[in-house]
């Protein structure tokens, strides 16, 4: 055991450790809880930066791998490791969590202690998902992370929070349970083919099943992730969940949880079943494109800002999926980067909407108007987030969108022709919103003496803005990290590509009695 060897495990379980200690803080000592959780999450972020320092972006394959036997009966191991994709998503998680915690300080007014501790639990779950290399471990984190989110929406959410929470939970579970069946099936199929039973993802990549089998397994995985992403038409839980969730919940939901779906496609569904993936690819691409346009059109007409941003997420994530389906380096690089971008820009938007809600207790567009006058700083930051969201060059959103679109154009021009309309529609609904909220004369008395952002709120937003500009201006470090991950993804999925064999030579034997 050492810091370096177990760095990833430390990062996964540090927040949970924080929860254990935090549980002993008196629940009436609110500021102690706030500071404690904030500091834990900040330490977590700092520790996660060590990942970047020690990350070798030139090497292919998983890094920081750790393996401990967990359930030997099934050859289920505690097997973790990351590549560029996971690294960025983990960083996104550790980056957003402290901001969300800090951002919630005045928003959450009941049962604070539970709220902040649940967030730390959630953080462990999310990082675990991104780091797992064993399918069962992955599944455990995948589901375990639903619970904190369920509670966060259900306890601190809006008026229809219970409906939204239950819908979120059951809908997601529905998909993932089918995935569980597929995982188990895969395990036995691999065992039958090679004589080795394992849930090791990297080994399972090499499994070649006939198309007829792959189709079903892929469908199970794809459905599960499609619900999570969400891909049209599995998206309806999202607006409900977003509208009802408290700000912090929305930010994490949009920023990280949705990425698990796209991550799932990239890490599991597509490379595990390349033949089926190629068969399904055009359909998924079409669904993604429908999602882009549909999400944007529906977002355009929403009267509730949060719902609008939620539908815009449907649109943006459609773009990410399209990037993954286009199967070339540009589009996949773009898709991964866009995952991060969406986390930042939509996260920022939700955060901002939350700040507004805190002041006015409404999110109806018609209630606002002209508040750029009373809240200039807020208006400026919102504008930057808006521009990032609509992919203005120079900000992060553009790099991702551009790479995805150009890549999908390379793959099939018609994809980009349709997906590109999202560029227009995105501007339409975001600017319409911006105008309705910030511009015009103040018509509503309640808006006349709104307070501009407090120092704390500005501190919450600044890191996000820095990232937004940084990725837009100098995306190269990020692209470097992503590069090998997307290359191996393509190699796994592309039909003609030769399978990559991993270097690990230890072949665990299935215990005799299970055969």
């Amino acid at each position: 055991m050492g810091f370096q060897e177990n760095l990833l495990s430390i990062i996964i379980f540090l927040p949970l450790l924080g929860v254990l200690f935090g549980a002993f803080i008196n629940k009436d000592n609110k500021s102690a809880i706030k500071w404690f959780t904030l500091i834990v999450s900040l330490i977590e972020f700092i520790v996660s930066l060590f990942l970047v320092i020690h990350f070798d972006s030139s090497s292919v394959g998983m890094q920081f791998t750790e393996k401990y036997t967990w359930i030997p009966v099934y050859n289920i191991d505690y097997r973790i490791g990351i590549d560029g994709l996971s690294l960025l998503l983990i960083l996104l998680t550790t980056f957003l969590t402290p901001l969300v915690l800090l951002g919630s300080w005045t928003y959450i007014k009941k049962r604070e202690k539970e709220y902040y501790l649940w967030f730390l639990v959630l953080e462990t779950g999310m990082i675990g998902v991104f780091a797992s290399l064993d399918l069962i471990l992955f599944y455990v984190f995948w589901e375990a992370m639903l619970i904190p989110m369920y509670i966060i929406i259900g306890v601190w959410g809006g008026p229809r929070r219970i409906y939204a929470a239950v819908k979120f939970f059951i809908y997601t579970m529905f998909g993932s349970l089918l995935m569980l069946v597929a995982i188990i099936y895969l395990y036995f199929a691999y065992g039958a083919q090679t004589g080795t039973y394992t849930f090791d993802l990297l080994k399972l990549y090499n499994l070649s099943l006939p198309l007829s089998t792959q189709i079903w397994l892929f469908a199970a995985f794809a459905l599960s992730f499609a619900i999570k992403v969400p891909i049209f038409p599995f998206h309806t839980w999202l607006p409900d969940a977003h509208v009802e969730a408290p700000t912090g919940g929305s930010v994490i939901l949009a920023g990280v949880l949705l990425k698990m779906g796209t991550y799932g496609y990239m890490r599991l569904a597509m490379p595990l079943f390349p033949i089926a993936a190629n068969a399904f690819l055009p359909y998924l691409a079409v669904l993604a494109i429908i999602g882009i346009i549909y999400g944007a059109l529906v977002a355009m007409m929403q009267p509730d800002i949060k719902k609008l941003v939620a539908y815009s997420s449907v649109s943006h994530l459609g773009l990410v999926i399209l990037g993954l389906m286009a199967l070339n380096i540009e589009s996949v690089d773009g898709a991964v980067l866009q995952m991060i971008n969406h986390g930042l820009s939509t996260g920022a938007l939700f955060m901002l909407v939350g700040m507004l809600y805190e002041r006015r207790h409404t999110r109806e567009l018609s209630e606002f108007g002209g508040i750029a006058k009373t809240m200039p700083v807020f208006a400026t930051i919102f504008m930057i987030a808006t521009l990032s969201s609509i992919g203005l060059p120079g900000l992060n959103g553009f790099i991702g969108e551009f790479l995805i679109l150009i890549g999908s154009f390379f793959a099939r021009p018609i994809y980009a022709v349709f997906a590109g309309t999202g560029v227009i529609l995105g501007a339409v609904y975001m600017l319409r919103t911006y105008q309705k909220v910030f511009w015009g004369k103040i018509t509503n008395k309640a808006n006349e003496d709104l307070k501009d952002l407090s120092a704390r709120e500005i501190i919450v937003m600044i890191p996000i803005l820095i990232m937004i500009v940084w990725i837009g201006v100098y995306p190269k470090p990020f692209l470097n990290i992503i590069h090998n991950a997307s290359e191996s993804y393509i190699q796994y999925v592309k039909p003609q590509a030769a399978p990559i064999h991993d270097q690990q030579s230890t072949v665990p034997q299935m215990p005799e009695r299970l055969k």
Partner: protein
Amino acid sequence: MELNIVRYILIFPLLGFLVNGFIGSKLGNKAVGWIASITVLLSLSISVYVFIQLLSMPPDARLITDTVYTWINSGSLTIDFKLMVDPLTAVMLLVVTGVGFLIHIYSIGYMHGDKSYSRFFAYLNLFMFSMLLLVLSSNIVLMFVGWEGVGLCSYLLIGFWYEKDSAANAGKKAFITNRIGDYGFLLGLFLLASAFVSKGIFTLDFNTMAAHISLISPQVLTIVGILLFVGATGKSAQLPLYVWLPDAMEGPTPVSALIHAATMVTAGVYMIARMNFLYVLAPTALEVVAVVGGLTALYAATIGLVQNDIKRVLAYSTISQLGYMFMAVGVGAFSAGIFHLMTHAFFKALLFLGAGSVIHALSGEQDMRKMGGLKNKIPVTFAVFLAAALAISGIPGLSGFFSKDSILAAAYASGHTVIWLLGFITALLTAFYIFRLIYMTFYGESRVDKHAAEHIHESPKVMTIPLIILAVLSVIGGYVGVPQLLGNIVGWHNSDLFVNFLAPVFHTMPEHEMSVSTDSWLMIGSITMAFLGVFFAWYVYLKEKMQPAKHAAESFAGLYRLLLNKYYVDELYNAIVIKPLMWISEFFLWKIFDVWVVDGTVNGSAHVTQWASTKLRKIQAGDFQVYVMLFLIGAISVLAYFVLR
């Protein structure tokens, strides 16, 4: 040649933006204005320095580059943050920084007293940065950054007085219309990129592309050309995407001058000139450019005839003049297009600033029907305005004459007679509407409100000095490109300095030799048209005191209304695109499809489960003999299954 100073042309305005944006409100208005202006002045100085450097090189090797860093590196694509100055860029640099600097100075006076003073200058600096990035970038993707950046600034500045709903709407409209164009631009870019990538060229550098353009099939080039031009129609307000520009006049007047006359709207022309290596191989695309340009020129001029808002007249005039430029590049006369771009930047900026001065004098009045007789009250403004008007009308000796003439000559020479005719008629209309403006504003009886009349005053020096400088430029600016025909008269060889300077950049179209006599007749023709236009305007608006105009409006009421309402294009777009799209989105997609069908299925499955639950539990009614029966049914089934299988 690699010259790292080039990047500072960009850095200074960016610094100005950052300083004014973050701490501008604490600096005080004076400091803000001067910081903004000085940063642009610094850019201007460096531009001049670079220009001189360029001149010192042999004509065929005039290229200065500055590679800052690798921006995007993904798969086969490598896109550098790399700047480039060649003669075309140099011209644009000087125009942008020069005019931009003057307008910054002017704004110090014009925006005096505005409560968002620092925000204004921050935006203006940001605009300068974006525009300079647009012209300096050495590849098409980076150019797109500037392209969008200027769009953003345009949006922000049009909506600068965001409390006015019309300003807010106009800003949004500008951005979205531009986005529609950008969609085409992006598709063109993608097609171009994929064509090059498939040939093993992994960079979208202009010079690299130019060197390898022959690898790509003409069909692809044609499509690319048209798609890129779609982007240009958005940015440069051509048919059918011009609708945003007249509304953009809601912005402060210096903005109209800088962005919506002199610089940003010409980006489309610049882009096509920049991509000339592509367009010369795609004659069909070029034809489209020329036709759209010609039609726009005439179309906008006709609307300009009847508008009463001083800035709107100028706006339509801008659209019309941009049409000229597209005509020029469309017929392959890239230098003529850029030449007109430059002279237009001078006189149109001047017209707008002059109009701003008028508006300033009249405490914000923009309706020409409430002006008149201002000639003596604001003499400096009148003088410079007149110079600009003469220039735009194409009165010989002024800058507009040279550039417009070279366009018409080129159009005729290349055999585009119809295009030439469009331009020819437009020349008449141009002279007419601009002098209509002059007469209505400065001559005749004052129709100014009593209240406003008391406050009429000439603008401060900080505003008039830039006007004067621009007036000088408008007058003499054309002499860098004196047609050889005229040059020969005075024995000036190589009189067309401008064309010669730009020549290395442009891939030539096949030469169309024209006889001297044809050339002369054309020139005489267009001069005639200019004077005719001025004369009609004088006749109608000064001599007969607008009576003929009223008469005409009554006898051709339909036509008049059509023109006054701008051919009802806005209403048309609203009715056939915007309204249906909104309706479909709201009622069909959202309220019916999303809520009922998609979500209905999801919730429906929950309801079915609950329904099944309520029904099934009824069996468990508490009567244990029912349980016994249930047991028996089960038992008999299992038994029967075992025994009878």
